[in-house]
């Protein structure tokens, strides 16, 4: 018996997904030359399967700031924030993030994954509770596992279900940290944040909103769904990532509570890792400015989103979200059909994502398309043309009805 035996089923699935052409998971991308163009298997493709919502990865000011920092401050910090890895830029970015929200505290983490791990495991300790949405990202679940708090799961986007779970805790609900996301990245759906806020207030619990996929995209200043829903005053902590709209890598937590600062003393994923490199921090600071002032980018993104959602629906595709957003998840009846759609779209020069269980909720097989402010009208046309071919050649859209 080998310790590798447990991976056999996953390895078989991987082989199947890699048969005949580039693999649909961990797709090898030969080169990327802009926010929307790259090469896969020798073919020029339109990138519609990234999280580059604001399209800033090739912004000349972001690149220049990163290049300058690389030259002036070196390629890496070689240490933790606790030790030798706290540079001026880290503190400046934290100030700028806190200022963007008008809040007193912010902490930068080295990845988005660690932002959830570090915040949740740091905030909630033995005797506290973490109440998380069932469709939460793996980093939220892993943050719960690292915490000594008791973790309870409530039904996806169901404030009434959360209400019942908090009610069962009685007075202890005041030690409960509720975690929801601003946009669920598999299905592209959004939570009823105003209702969650009411439930949280009713029980005196604390609310964390993970805006990883919604920061930059929603709200007048791009601060996320909490801003758009007008509930910022009732959110306690917002978690975000630098690796999507902010076009770098890293993560953050901002809070209306000054005591967030204390997490620096208790959060293992913050303490025991090297801090982000100066180039990443410098680029992120410029990207943050562009996002807060990015009305025109958001307008173009919104236009692209509405055209894609309307077009996909007109073709008869069933989408994971009723409310249009930067992720359009086309629900397909089984893995083979979803894979055929993924390959078909790639053949028409569009790279999207194949998403399959257990990464997806409810055992769904998805073709996930994500929009960027950098996509032009012609780019959206190309995606819709590709979908038109799929609708004609592959699964009749009514097949999607088979999945309820």
């Amino acid at each position: 018996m080998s310790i590798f035996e447990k991976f056999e089923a996953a390895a078989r699935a991987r082989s199947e997904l890699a048969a005949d052409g580039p693999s649909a998971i961990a797709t090898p991308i030969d080169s990327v030359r802009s926010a929307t163009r790259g090469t896969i298997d020798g073919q020029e493709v339109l990138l519609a399967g990234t999280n580059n919502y604001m399209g800033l990865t090739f912004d000349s000011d972001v690149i220049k700031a990163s290049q300058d920092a690389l030259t002036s401050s070196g390629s890496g910090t070689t240490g933790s924030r606790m030790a030798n890895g706290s540079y001026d830029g880290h503190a400046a970015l934290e100030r700028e993030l806190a200022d963007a929200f008008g809040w007193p505290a912010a902490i930068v983490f080295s990845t988005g994954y660690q932002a959830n791990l570090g915040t949740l495991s740091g905030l909630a300790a033995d005797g506290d509770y973490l109440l998380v949405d069932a469709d939460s990202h793996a980093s939220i679940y892993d943050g719960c596992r690292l915490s000594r708090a008791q973790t309870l799961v409530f039904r996806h986007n169901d404030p009434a279900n959360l209400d019942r779970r908090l009610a069962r805790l009685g007075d202890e609900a005041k030690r409960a940290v509720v975690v929801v996301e601003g946009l669920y990245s598999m299905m592209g759906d959004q939570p009823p944040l105003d209702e969650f806020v009411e439930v949280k207030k009713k029980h005196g619990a604390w609310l964390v909103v993970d805006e990883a996929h919604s920061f930059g995209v929603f709200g007048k200043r791009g601060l996320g769904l909490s801003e758009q829903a007008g509930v910022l005053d009732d959110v306690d902590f917002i978690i975000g990532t630098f690796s999507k709209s902010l076009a770098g890598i890293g993560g953050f937590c901002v809070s209306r509570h000054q005591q967030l600062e204390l997490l620096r003393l208790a959060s293992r994923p913050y303490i025991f890792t090297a801090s982000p490199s100066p180039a990443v921090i410098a680029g992120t600071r410029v990207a943050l400015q562009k996002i807060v002032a990015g009305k025109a980018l958001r307008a173009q993104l919104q236009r692209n989103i509405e055209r894609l959602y309307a077009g996909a629906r007109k073709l008869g595709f069933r989408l994971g979200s009723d409310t249009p957003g930067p992720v359009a998840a086309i629900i397909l009846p089984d893995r083979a059909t979803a894979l055929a759609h993924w390959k078909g779209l790639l053949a028409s020069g569009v790279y999207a994502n194949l998403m399959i269980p257990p990464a997806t909720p409810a055992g769904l097989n998805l073709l996930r398309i994500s929009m960027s402010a950098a996509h032009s009208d012609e780019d959206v046309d190309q995606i819709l043309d590709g979908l038109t071919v799929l609708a004609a050649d592959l699964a009749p859209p009514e097949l999607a009805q088979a999945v309820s």
Partner: protein
Amino acid sequence: MSSTRDRVDAAIGQGLNNALPELGQPDRDAVLTSGIGLDSVQIMNLVMEIEDELDISVPVDVLAETRTLNELAERLTRMIDGDTP
């Protein structure tokens, strides 16, 4: 009056019907993952149904330590009767 364990067993039956109707009523001593073939998301959906049936909240770490439906029933019974899970 039925015992807590009877109530829990009935709730597991109902939870299976609601969350995983295609399974029917599987062997409750079979390992949920390797024996019945459930993934982590399916197990969580099943447990959420059972929680609603019994009006209790089951901590995630209880699930992590539970391999079969009968083990789950034992833990839930102890939880409801006021012992530590």
